[in-house]
């Protein structure tokens, strides 16, 4: 397990199923106010990872791509917070449009997972867990997690402990 520094974790998922399990481990650790940003081109497993996060939070219904509706809301059993699954792929002027549809409101009020987050980076809070996915081959994906603030450092440390035991 390559560790670049305390705030970065870089590893490989060997299958979509593994990407989902990675997400589920992370989802079991999140709490209200957490922001998870997903960056990566089409087909790298952003939605798959988000499905896993939902699974780990206890969401029982299928989590599908929010590209069409921009935001999908899921309500796991209490006291787990609401999951907002957001996708800014379609926005032409993402920064202004994301402000217009009230992204701030969601960020205060549950766990936000944002796909194509790099498109709205300027308006995202500094405190966030940034996950970059990249194609390695047909099934393998590189997954890099970077913590940017005390809470996401805590979340990343807990994830590292849960997934890799270190």
């Amino acid at each position, binding site marked *: 397990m390559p560790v670049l520094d305390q705030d970065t974790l870089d590893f490989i998922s060997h299958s979509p199923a593994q990407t989902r399990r990675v997400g589920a*481990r992370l989802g079991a650790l999140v709490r209200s106010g957490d922001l998870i940003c997903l960056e990566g*081109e089409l*087909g790298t497993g952003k*939605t798959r990872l988000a499905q896993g996060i939902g699974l*780990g939070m206890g969401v029982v219904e299928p989590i599908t791509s929010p590209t*069409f*509706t921009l935001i999908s809301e899921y309500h796991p059993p209490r006291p787990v917070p609401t999951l907002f699954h957001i996708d800014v792929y*379609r926005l032409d002027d993402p920064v202004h449009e994301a402000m217009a*549809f009230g992204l701030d409101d969601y960020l205060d009020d549950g766990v936000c997972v944002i796909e194509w987050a790099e498109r709205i980076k300027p308006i995202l809070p500094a405190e966030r867990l940034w996950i970059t996915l990249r194609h390695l081959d047909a099934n393998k994906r590189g997954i890099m997690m970077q913590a940017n603030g005390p809470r996401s450092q805590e979340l990343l440390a807990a994830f590292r402990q849960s997934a890799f035991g270190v």
Partner: protein
Amino acid sequence: MTLILGIESSCDETAAAVVADGRSILSNVIASQVDIHRRYGGVFPEVASRQHVLSILPVIEEALAGAGVELRAGSPHAGGGTAPNGGLDAIAVTRGPGLAGSLLVGVNVAKGLALASGLPLVGINHIEAHIYGNWLVEAPPPEFPLVCLVVSGGHTELILMTGHGQYQRLGGTLDDAAGEAFDKVGRLLGLPYPGGPAIQEAAAAGSATAFKLPRAWLPGTYDFSFSGLKTAVLRIVQKYEPQASGGPKSKPRTVSSQMPPLVRVLPVANLAASFQAAVVDVLVEKTCQAAEEFGAQIVLLAGGVAANTLLRQEMSRRSPLPVRYPPADLCTDNAAIIASAGYYRYEAGERAGWDMDVNPGLRLVARPTPGPEDPEGTPKKA
């Protein structure tokens, strides 16, 4: 004769229609925003809401005038008005699923009109309305039980319908909706928005067997998955065009003057045809299986992707049961289907209160059961 005014504003069409007895269209007016959204490569929510506000009242007025009715309670035989077909019986409006800001425009206008006219109000599920597009076809009404494949930009669902308002969800997409896959692959291939018609057009000149693309059969379920197919197309496109990132804003190809001209031109027609065939293959096969298992009398297609010619042809060819689909202009969003669904809800005695709210995530059937899990099992909570 029961006359329902239908109002639809869930996404990028502002529409109003008057339908008699749930089956016969007296007027059907649509103000499309496709041209506005085309330059964004998708629906642009804030623009959509503003356009709905501008269009909705003229659209409703045109629908009423076209149907020869007035916005008041009263059967054709009741006196008082000058319109040839008299008054209306109810107003039906889409309350979800869709974009919140867009839905709010239709629902609030419908409430205002209902309050002013004294007409009852019925809230409609947009997905259900698409199924009712098949009741607007000139033929005897579909017999129950039936299996309906609802395929659009935001939805891919296989529904068992055992009576009016009686639905069971057999399965649906686990990731991308079929129409979304068309839009995303259309963009990868450099085709215009919306991707569905553009891919169909491009595919006409191509070979469906040129590329072997994956089909996610997900055996033992009636679920679908299109994200692997999308990724497979991306991998092929990348072989031809090193710069294609698949990102929302793919840059135009620039060829350095030192390099020889690209000899491998992206085979758009063959890729479009192979992709379309892969999507249709899975949709048709699973729908036929479901129809057989549940003893359906007829197979229905509904939603925007039901306008796809190959899907219609293949479903008709491969299904042993009768297959029905609405004409293309009733597959895409419109208000006649809202009025038709509204008629059957109205006849069943349903009335919405003033507290009716929009529900952007409204489902046709509650989904209490999780999707199929990985054979390797799901991780335990830490």
